[in-house]
């Protein structure tokens, strides 16, 4: 527990220590929200509660991107050499991983919560049980994508490579996830991509809660783009939740594996003058 706590606190401290990054992390989603709330004034046909639709999309996208990006911190640790101090310590590898993942998740969730609060002022309408549900999903999504980010970061050789990788991954994933553009509006050739996209399931469960759809029949859920038909099989939002849980377990396991196997000595370090 002590090691988890110290890894966690250190990661949080190095995040809040980087003031410029901190400011931008928190400002960017507000721009999104601002721009999209204007566009959404003219709501696309067939969508109920356009404001909730839009805000939930922006929130989940923000949480997922932040979580993915935050894990980049370990590349700096690898490059600065500090990672060696961690990997030679007598600390079980899962504790190192969980400390890192929790730190990046916490920042992502805080950011999501801030957006949620702003959302209430500009027309997000939810009751407490739904809010609790959303926070729960944010935590899960934060954990999942922090693990994915940490795993990807442990594979890359430099922070610029990681940044390129993330931006190459993030945009397409976001666009075909249904987070911003309704899945029903996607052209059919993009559908396979949709099903392989972890973000699709995340957006589905998040939207299911934020649009208060628990009383809708399945065929209506499919029409609204929160349940998906794959042949004769229907992925309900509940099944989507399970898929995310499995995915987070998978990627967390992969992170632990990386910390077990990697010596991180191949990562380019900057030569310091002694």
């Amino acid at each position, binding site marked *: 527990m002590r*090691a988890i706590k110290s890894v966690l606190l250190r990661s949080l401290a190095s995040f809040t220590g980087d003031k410029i990054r901190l400011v931008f992390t928190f400002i960017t989603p507000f721009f999104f929200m601002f721009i999209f709330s204007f566009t959404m004034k003219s709501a696309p046909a067939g969508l109920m509660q356009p404001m909730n639709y839009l805000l939930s999309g922006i929130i989940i996208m923000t949480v997922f991107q932040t979580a993915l990006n935050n894990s980049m911190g370990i590349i700096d640790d690898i490059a600065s050499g500090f990672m060696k101090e961690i*990997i030679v310590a007598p600390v079980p590898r899962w504790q190192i991983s969980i400390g890192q993942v929790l730190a990046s998740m916490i920042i992502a969730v805080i950011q999501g919560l801030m957006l949620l609060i702003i959302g209430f002022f500009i027309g997000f309408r939810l009751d407490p049980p739904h809010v609790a549900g959303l926070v729960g999903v944010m935590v899960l999504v934060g954990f999942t994508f922090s693990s994915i980010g940490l795993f990807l970061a442990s594979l890359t050789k430099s922070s610029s490579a990681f940044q390129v990788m993330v931006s190459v991954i993030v945009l397409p994933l976001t666009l075909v996830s249904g987070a911003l553009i309704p899945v029903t509006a996607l052209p059919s050739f993009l559908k396979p991509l949709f099903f392989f996209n972890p973000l699709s399931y995340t957006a589905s469960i998040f939207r299911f809660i934020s649009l208060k759809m628990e009383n809708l029949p399945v065929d209506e859920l499919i029409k609204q783009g929160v349940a998906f038909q794959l042949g004769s099989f229907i992925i309900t939002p509940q099944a989507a939740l399970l898929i995310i849980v499995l995915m987070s377990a998978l990627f967390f396991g992969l992170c632990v594996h990386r910390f077990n196997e990697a*010596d991180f000595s191949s990562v380019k370090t900057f030569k310091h003058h*002694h």
Partner: protein
Amino acid sequence: MPGNIIEVSHYTQKYGDFKAVDDISFNVEEGSIFAFLGPNGAGKSTTINTLCTILSKTDGMLKINGNDVAGHKDRVRADIGIVFQESTLDNNLTVFDNLKLHCDFYNVPYEEVKKRIDFALSLVDMLDWKKSVVKGLSGGMKRRVEIARGLVHFPRVLFLDEPTAGLDAQTRANIWEYIRKLQKQKNITIFMTTHYMEEAEICDHLAIIDHGKIAANGTLYDLKRKYSSSVTRIMTGDTAALRGYLDARSVDFKEDGGLITFHSNNTELVLDIASRFKSSITDLEINKGTLNDVYLSITGKEVRS
């Protein structure tokens, strides 16, 4: 008789087809200073990385304090402290916070943390810098903080990978001083790698490694005895008599004015000369062979770096 804290037998490390370390075996006695001397790329850091559990061996058996480094990683990790060649401090934290973090990782009892940090920092004369952010420290200071951090959890073995590489002469001398002090005060075993002859001089036991193989292994004293010869210089008023004596025993010597110089490890010979020519000798000096001589005679070349 202290036991061996590090035992290595038939250790081999391959990177692809390249053998970085080729079937080496050695032991390190508890409480001693052991040095791996060799040029860059000889396999020193590779061996340290494997002993420190961050590199998986290709073959062989490596044990620290009786624990297999491949099988009992956490036990081995708890027993050792490491100062890597390059800095592994968190540059954004203070000296104190870096050491505190280390105490958390190594589960140092909470009530002892402050006391131990003060002890470790005072050993390397860095107590006054406790609250400074690491980023602002000089290279030498950072290295001292790393040494303090490496021992704040009281490891059984402290690994120092090229502890003074890149530092100035004064700082290097200080660090050797700290290392000696450390070994005396805490009876800690120190395993270091170096490509500096002067640095290897502070060890008790030495292994010369080159091209992944151990070329020689023994105490500093034994190696010098075996691979180098003492130089004796005698100033005498009666060079002819001494010349005749040395010629009779076929000892090669050089003569320069009244000064006769010869190489020999035979102490009795020198004592005999001293007593025989007591009246004519005005000055006598014996210099033990240097590590450089040892290195040259073993590898046939100067240390490449």
